[in-house]
């Protein structure tokens, strides 16, 4: 009898828990779920959107394209908008993961500048909104590099005596090998084994003079003087430079560099399509795009916003390069199976 009572109590508890657990939010208020890179959208921009439209916005973060792809592919739904890089947009399009918000019919579509990097699968920017672009160049400590030329990849791959042991390079397959390829005059996306071998040799020769290969904490270390020169992304570098302009600077090397661009895309399984479209319209407004760019210190793709961008950023040739420099920027392309060639080179480099 006692056992029966215990059994009844246990099953009631179990049912109560089961009933309480997966509760689909049946709230009346509209919601929007953003899935973005970390520290890649101005919190004030998100707040303003919430206040204006009354839509509740949540923001979650990922650190690389591949993480986001893995999660979305494995079935995570609940996110409305993601921010893939251009090549990742092509991949996701092929996998039918992206939804079409019909940007052409939304307000502000004509504000987009067509001359920036274009996704092969979406040449008219109808599916994804070009969000932010930048370059991977060099951030340098002004005091330590006084009198040295830092506007070339030479300072990384053939460092002068004074800077040896104070160079940092990104711990990223495409960025590092790509920089070596560009330094040798080849394309950033080259899949020619001979060119890759030359790049590998360049890196192997320079590696003893490097202090570190890393992707984190670079800003602090350049300010401190632990690194004299470091390869870094323009947005983060510009934010660091803005905080201490007389100590550090950012430059695009003259041989060329990686140009990256992130797109704002809606997922095919997005639960809040109307909210997502409202957000797209909002982001295409020139004042909003300018506010976001001023915070990101990146490049805006909204030509109507250019007049509202902070003049200090707008006039910096390293953040808004001239057309001539822009010719030397290479957009990262997905290499498909050929990435194995890069992996082989990378393994060799890391092992030595």
């Amino acid at each position, binding site marked *: 009898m006692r056992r029966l009572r215990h059994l009844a109590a246990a099953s009631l508890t179990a049912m109560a828990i089961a009933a309480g657990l997966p509760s689909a939010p049946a709230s009346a208020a509209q919601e929007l779920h953003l899935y973005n890179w970390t*520290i890649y959208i101005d919190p004030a921009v998100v707040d303003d959107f919430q206040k204006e439209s009354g839509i509740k916005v949540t923001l979650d973060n990922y650190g690389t394209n591949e993480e986001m792809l893995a999660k979305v592919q494995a079935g995570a739904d609940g996110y409305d908008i993601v921010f893939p890089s251009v090549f990742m947009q092509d991949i996701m399009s092929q996998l039918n993961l992206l939804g079409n918000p019909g940007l052409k019919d939304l307000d502000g579509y004509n504000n987009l500048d067509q001359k920036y990097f274009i996704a092969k699968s979406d040449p008219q920017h109808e599916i994804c909104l070009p969000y932010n672009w930048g370059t991977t160049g060099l951030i340098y400590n002004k005091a330590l590099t006084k009198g040295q030329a830092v506007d070339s990849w030479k300072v990384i791959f053939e460092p002068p005596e004074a800077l040896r042991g104070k160079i940092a390079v990104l711990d990223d397959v495409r960025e590092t090998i790509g920089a070596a390829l560009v330094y040798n005059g080849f394309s950033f996306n080259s899949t020619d084994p001979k060119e890759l071998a030359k790049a590998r040799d360049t890196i192997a020769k320079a590696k003893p003079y490097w202090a570190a290969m890393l992707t984190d904490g670079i800003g602090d270390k350049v300010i401190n003087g632990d690194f004299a020169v470091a390869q870094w992304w323009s947005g983060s570098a510009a934010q660091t430079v803005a905080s201490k302009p007389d100590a550090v600077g950012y430059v695009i090397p003259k041989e060329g560099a990686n140009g990256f661009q992130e797109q704002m895309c809606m997922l095919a399984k997005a639960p809040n399509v109307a909210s997502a479209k409202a957000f797209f319209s909002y982001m295409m407004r020139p004042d909003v795009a300018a506010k976001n760019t001023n915070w990101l210190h990146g490049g805006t793709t909204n030509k109507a916003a250019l007049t509202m961008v902070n003049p200090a950023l707008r006039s910096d040739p390293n953040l808004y390069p001239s057309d001539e420099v822009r010719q030397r920027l290479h957009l990262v392309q997905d290499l498909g199976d050929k990435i194995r060639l890069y992996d082989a080179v990378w393994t060799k480099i890391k092992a030595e």
Partner: protein
Amino acid sequence: MSLRPSPLKAALLAHLWLFFLFLYLPIAMLVVYSFNDNAVSMMTWNGFTFDWYWRVLANIGLISPSSDLAGSGNLQLYSDPNLGPAALNSVIVALGSASLATVIGTLSALGLARCTFPGKLTYRTALYLPIVIPDIVLGIALLVFLAALSFPLGRVSVILAHTVFLASYVTVVVGARLAGMNTALEEASADLGASPWITFWRVTFPQLVPGIVGGFLLSVVISFDDLVIAYFTSGVGATTLPVYLFGAIKRNVSPEINAISVLMMLLSMVIVALALWLRRPTRA
């Protein structure tokens, strides 16, 4: 007994002090820098301020962002509003999953130690799987499983995912404690007429408490630290601190992280103090 320690003892003492210094000096520096008024260069001391703490409290919603405390100073520009909520998520997930895992793990350990049932060996072996499997395999498997069930991803899904592997850890810890326990007391209690329920609560449980508490604390730490599984099974609004920091370190992490770390430390000290207080010797 000599008043001066022998050379060997002196060397051991010196080693002990060096060890503690090595362990706690970085933490002490963390505490010091959390009061640093320098938003740009974390390492250069600029002045004493409580501002970072007020920013953290404002970001997790405990004080109003427009209040005098939180809005003062230029640190507002360098405050990252997502750090605080991520840390809060981590705490909730850690405590929630550790509690669930402790209950399940203790029951598991008791069952394995006291009962025989068909498939016991298989169960015991399967128990070690979540500990041995690489995190990323477990993470993706759990995500695919949850997606197949159409289970909404969020904080609850992370708690459940963590419970899956934490229960194994607790089972191992409590099982070790059970193995070392003398069953004579339990047999005596049964001989004297106590029911299994009374025997458990009055005899077995008090002896098990150190193992249970140890399992709980271990689970909290492992859950808090976990990056991969939390990444894959978290949903909207459930970003935990390690997941957030993994992306943030590629850019610039706000020095607010120092204040958050100190607050975490205080929280864990409170938990440990509570655990010790619960275990205090009471009058029999």
